[in-house]
């Protein structure tokens, strides 16, 4: 991994040195061994603090909406899946392409620390990744676990090693590969097979935990409205909290709907949710339906493609028709 970090730093430093770019958006070390905070590294020297490892799950493409418009080119470190988000943002003219230098960084899957905790591994003092295994020092003894068992939800349906958009890239080290994807719609299908009552109870159980912190919305690269309808006092739905179960349903249905056809399935919504609501299952339902009803579509795969909800076919099925 160190080799990869060095290469990233080298490339960034060179780009800043020759004046092509002025700063980098990447990740830096946080307060704990698994804490990685997205950060702006301004200037060649700051690049030294840059870090890249198995804990850089955050998708930084949304920062580019603002960063691409504030003078000078910004180098964005984008994992393959993050490049889909950038493409989508470019398609919607939310990011100024000329302000971004997309530096693809290879990814062999990102770790979800919550999943490590779920395994009962708590009090983590140090984590090291060695050959697909995580060796973890805790306050209560040393533990190991397979990295593949604790990957972020989004990594379980990895989009592969291809960058949808990039100006340059740093590939994975030899021997490392992207996680092999499993069927991303299996959970959706499982819910579809439930009875309406079970489905309703499943979603009530999940959505009732919502605290309306808006992390899903604010982290979502597709949610890029200047003022969200749920923040607009005149919309009549800016309730801020959910005094009734209905509000939770409405917020999440509408949020998923507003990104339907634009959602690249980057999984940020579920990753950031402090209540661990599987929000991606709402988005994936839309993706699955779009694929079934209107043909396979992957948002962000190509720049400037026409999304399925701003398009039509005269022979489309009628609503409600199975």
């Amino acid at each position, binding site marked *: 991994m160190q080799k990869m970090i060095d290469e990233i730093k080298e490339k960034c430093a060179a780009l800043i040195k020759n004046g092509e770019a002025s700063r980098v958006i990447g990740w830096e070390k946080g*307060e704990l061994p698994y804490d990685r905070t997205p950060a702006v590294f301004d200037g060649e020297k700051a690049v030294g603090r840059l870090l890249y490892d198995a804990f850089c799950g955050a998708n930084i493409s949304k920062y580019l909406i603002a960063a691409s418009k504030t003078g000078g080119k910004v180098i964005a470190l984008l994992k393959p899946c993050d490049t889909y988000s950038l493409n989508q943002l470019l398609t919607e003219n939310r990011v100024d392409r000329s302000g971004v230098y997309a530096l693809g960084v290879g990814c062999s899957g990102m770790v979800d620390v919550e999943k490590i905790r779920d395994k009962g591994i708590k*009090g983590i*003092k140090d984590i090291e990744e060695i050959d697909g295994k995580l060796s973890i020092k805790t306050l209560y003894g040393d533990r190991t676990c397979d990295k593949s068992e604790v990957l972020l939800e989004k990594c379980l349906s990895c989009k592969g090693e291809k960058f949808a958009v990039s100006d340059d890239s740093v590939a994975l080290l030899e021997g490392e590969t992207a996680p092999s994807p499993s069927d991303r719609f299996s959970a959706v299908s499982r819910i579809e097979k439930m009875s309406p009552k079970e489905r309703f109870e499943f979603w009530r*159980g999940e959505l009732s935990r919502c*605290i309306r*912190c808006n992390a899903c919305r604010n982290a979502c690269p597709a949610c890029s409205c200047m003022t969200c309808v749920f923040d607009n006092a005149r919309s009549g739905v800016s*309730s801020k909290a959910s*005094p009734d179960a209905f509000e939770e349903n409405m917020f999440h249905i509408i949020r998923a709907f507003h990104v339907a056809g634009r959602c690249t399935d980057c999984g940020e919504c579920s990753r950031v949710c*402090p209540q661990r609501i599987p929000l991606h299952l709402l988005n994936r339902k839309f993706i699955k339906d779009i694929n079934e009803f209107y043909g396979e579509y992957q948002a962000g795969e190509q720049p400037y493609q026409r999304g399925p909800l701003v398009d039509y076919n005269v022979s489309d099925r009628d609503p409600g028709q199975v």
Partner: protein
Amino acid sequence: MLKITLDKISELLSEINKTHCVYAPVERSGEVCFDKWSEGEKVRLDVLKTSKSAKGVFFPQTEDIARFRSKGKELEISQAKTEGGPFVIFGVRACDVKSFEILDSVFLSDPVDSFYKARRENALIVAIACSKPEETCFCKTFSIDPAGPSGDVEGYTANGALYFEPRTEKGKNFCASIARLLEEGDEGAVRAEKEKIRGIMADLPFSSLTTKGWGKDEGNRKFNSEKWKELSDACIGCGACTFTCPTCQCYDVRDFDNGREVIRYRCWDSCMYNDFTMMAHGTPRKTRVERFRQRFMHKLCYHPENHGGVFSCVGCGRCIEKCPMSINIVKVMRAIGGEEI
């Protein structure tokens, strides 16, 4: 010293539930939140950082305040009814117990918030010590002892049992009321448990974190630090930290018109939101930097200034675990606390 074996906890809760509502760390679809317990629900006394803190028991996410009914030009205003009755809040950790004191200093100061006060008076707190503190814990920084969690009844888990020690009159009566289920326990086990916990505390990654450089007289100096910009760069302006924080107490007051009457309710609000201070002519906190600064300044300078030097943080570590972008109060305390401006 009284005790009950851990396998009998649900039996105990059922017993309490006969006379009192019980709030406990209940497992809901795999997540553990502080919420009303109902028969058959699983209580997780091994989980330290519930994904919703216990503050919601006293200061709910939303609650109705008033109802307005209009008829022509006439208006009728009535106070919303609140649920009453005594309840038990079971399994609160030392940090969350301390957070109640901090909420008290706001809601019980003049003019007293009657909604909050009623709930506070109705509550009996069964606190439990943290057998296994985690790496994100830093309650020690705020002089909180996880081995002495306070509350009406103090609890300790040791040797597969939960030990009880009443600390108040209310707590004594409570223990007497459940005495049927309790057996005599050994003081030594609890003493050993306390020792063990304090030993682990010294070993935590944040055990050396101090509040140096923060406090009531630091307001202006810290406000003007240049580091706020850099620290807030990654902030996405969500309310995850605020809403999971046991001491954040800001609220919004809003109206809901259902066509027949208007219900005024209050709900949690976050200083991280851009509409928090938005007025018709604009907002004094225009960018993410100012909003971010407000949250930490409030916890580390303004609150101490208004409340006798007490910080509005209890070191529970929820913000460390929950922030989508791994920003947290520890980072801020370290980055700005030590610097000389």
